[in-house]
């Protein structure tokens, strides 16, 4: 009996060793060998990741996957998207089923630490917002005293709402529903004055109304929902790659390098542009990529501004303002460390 246990223990140890050996090889190396990036995405979120009529996935998050693939493999289409539910997205990342998770995931402390994730760059600053009827003639959420608010039961949305109204000493009546659809229906039929959810969602939901033009989204954002890409703990090189793909897209926008002018920009004399596009220095090599990595990203996918406008901004039906997602030079929060 003892020997059986011993054999079993040895077997388990051997298995552990092989797993250890396998994960010692970095994700970057694995992606290069596989010739494909495996990217965890959602089940369909307007503007961030959804299948188009031909079945091709499009969206802000999907473009991030494509940018990473372009930087490593010089082909934005070499991405395998794995659709994940909110529940199994972290398990999929922890078990190594996906290389990177870009799925409108809020960066929180508990996820960053105890779940064993590293968040690499915030690709969208989201937060809870309010929608009201234009006929109410309200310009700010601070005028909402006494309003009835439609929201979804048991979500952080409901808690944020309570915090906000209490902090501003305003009265409100909450009308909560189980599903998002019920909530929207109730608001549209006039059951309450205000509808609240994450602001990116407000824009998408507004389109489903019979008269979207009658409703407006108030400028206040009452909670922090920084949406970021994430990777596993313990592979710093891969973390750097994902992080710097994000920063490269921001720096490209800041320096005016876009999909259309990237070839002319290669001849630029600006030292910052030269470092960005790899005509000077060896910055790509530092993260295990060729020096023209940013050229690959911008040529194939575009800079951050282009990606934003195409998927959720003015180039899309959602028409979300840049707002907090504007560059820091234009009053937003998007700020990338310099490449030097």
């Amino acid at each position, binding site marked *: 009996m003892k020997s059986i246990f011993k054999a079993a223990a040895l077997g388990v140890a051997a*298995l552990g060793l*092989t*797993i250890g050996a*396998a*994960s010692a090889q970095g994700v970057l190396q694995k992606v290069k060998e596989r010739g494909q990036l495996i990217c965890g995405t959602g*089940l*369909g*979120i*307007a*503007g961030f990741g*959804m*299948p*188009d*009529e*031909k*079945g*091709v*996935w499009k969206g802000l998050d999907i473009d991030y996957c494509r940018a990473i693939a372009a930087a490593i493999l010089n082909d934005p289409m070499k991405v*395998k*998207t*794995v*659709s*994940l*539910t909110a529940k*199994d997205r972290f*398990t*999929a990342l*922890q*078990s*190594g*089923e996906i290389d990177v998770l870009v799925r409108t995931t809020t960066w929180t402390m508990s996820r960053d630490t105890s779940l064993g994730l590293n968040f690499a760059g915030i690709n969208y600053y989201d937060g809870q917002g309010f929608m009201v009827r234009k006929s109410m003639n309200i310009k700010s959420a601070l005028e909402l005293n006494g309003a009835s608010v439609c929201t979804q039961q048991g979500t952080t949305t409901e808690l944020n709402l309570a915090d906000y109204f209490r902090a501003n000493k305003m009265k409100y009546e909450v009308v909560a529903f189980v599903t998002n*659809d019920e909530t929207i229906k109730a608001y549209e039929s006039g059951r309450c004055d205000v509808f609240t959810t994450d602001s990116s969602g407000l824009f*998408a939901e507004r*389109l*489903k*109304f*019979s*008269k979207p033009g009658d409703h407006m989204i108030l400028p206040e954002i009452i909670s922090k929902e920084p949406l970021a890409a994430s990777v596993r703990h313990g592979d710093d090189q891969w973390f750097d790659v994902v992080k710097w793909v994000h920063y490269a897209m921001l720096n490209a926008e800041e320096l005016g390098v876009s999909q259309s002018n990237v070839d002319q920009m290669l001849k630029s004399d600006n030292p910052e542009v030269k470092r960005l596009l790899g005509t000077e220095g060896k910055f790509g090599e530092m993260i295990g990529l060729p020096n023209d990595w940013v050229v690959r990203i911008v040529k194939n996918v575009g800079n951050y501004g282009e990606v934003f406008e195409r998927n959720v901004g003015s180039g*899309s*039906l*959602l028409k979300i303002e840049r707002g907090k997602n504007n560059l820091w030079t234009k009053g937003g929060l998007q700020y990338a460390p310099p490449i030097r």
Partner: protein
Amino acid sequence: MTIGDNVTPMDASGAYLGSGDLPQRKPPVTSRGLVAWVRDNLFSSIPNTIMTLLGFWILWEITPPILDFLIFDAVWEGSGRDACLESVRNAPVGACWAFVKVRLGYFFYGQYPIDERWRVDTVWAMGAIGVVWLLWPRVPYKNWGSLYFFLIFPVVAFFLLVGTPAFNLQKVPTNLWGGVLVTLVISTVGIVFSLPLGVLLALGRRSKLPLVRLFSVIFIEFVRGVPLITVLFMANVMLPLFLPDGWRPDSLIRVLVGIALFASAYMAEIVRGGLQAIGRGQYEGAQSLGLGYWQMMVLIILPQALKIVIPNIVNTFIGLFKDTTLVSIVGIFDFLKTIEASFVDPRWATPVTRATGYAFAAIFYFIFCWGMSQYSQWMERKLATGHKR
């Protein structure tokens, strides 16, 4: 009419005799036309009348809106949300079939590359031929049909769908499969594998060999004791944590195995019910003819047992077909999930998009399930040879 009206009093010999023809009676009730049928069946009593009126009132209330939504107010053509918006059309808008039309390719094939979709079509055509061949009694050469459907078709379908460099077919990984393709693949594999596995498990559970019996009982009870969702989560989330890196079966295959095992446990209990309905005499008769165990089972017992449980088997198949929608929770895009994923598209964001999508899904599932049910009833009638009660 009482005796005596047309009967003369006792004559001399002491017998009663008729003294003329009896008056004609009314014709029997069977042929009394629609009005009588209505009176007998719909308005036979006061409660019945109330129920009838209530039923008609409900029909009267719900039928016109349904027809309006599905047909008369529906939008059939259009290239975007404007086509299905009441504010733009200035007319009531029913179902937005234009949305379904534009997205139909996605609903049927998922992300399967457009240039390669002929391969899926070929597989469907081959499958349809096989099904007709096997299920329509008048088509001859059933043995060849079985060989085709259970051996040739799966192999060809596999290579067509997955792709193989040998025939210059581009590889299509299963994460690109979706829509009706995935629904049909999962339900076909589930149905085709669950019946033989279920029969084996049922026989195992009634076996005299303790080890076989124990295995069958444990398997059946364990699998039946957990919800399908748990099996799917187990296959999708837990399995990768146990298995070493790089040794990870494809997620669709994991789900296929899970569903096939799950369905076979249910099938086993259904078949066991059929086996228990067969009288002892059938076993003894078979044994007295000198048949061995397998001969007895295959030639005498199973044909009778399976015939008895046809309604239950088809019931399980229909349930399985609809249960395939559960795979969406592990991120596989079956037919229903492709429809739901399309709801988020801002280009088709309208108040009616969601209702249209679900209506389309309902029609699709109904056609398939009703077809299966009709076939099974027809088969039952055909096989009814004295067992019908």
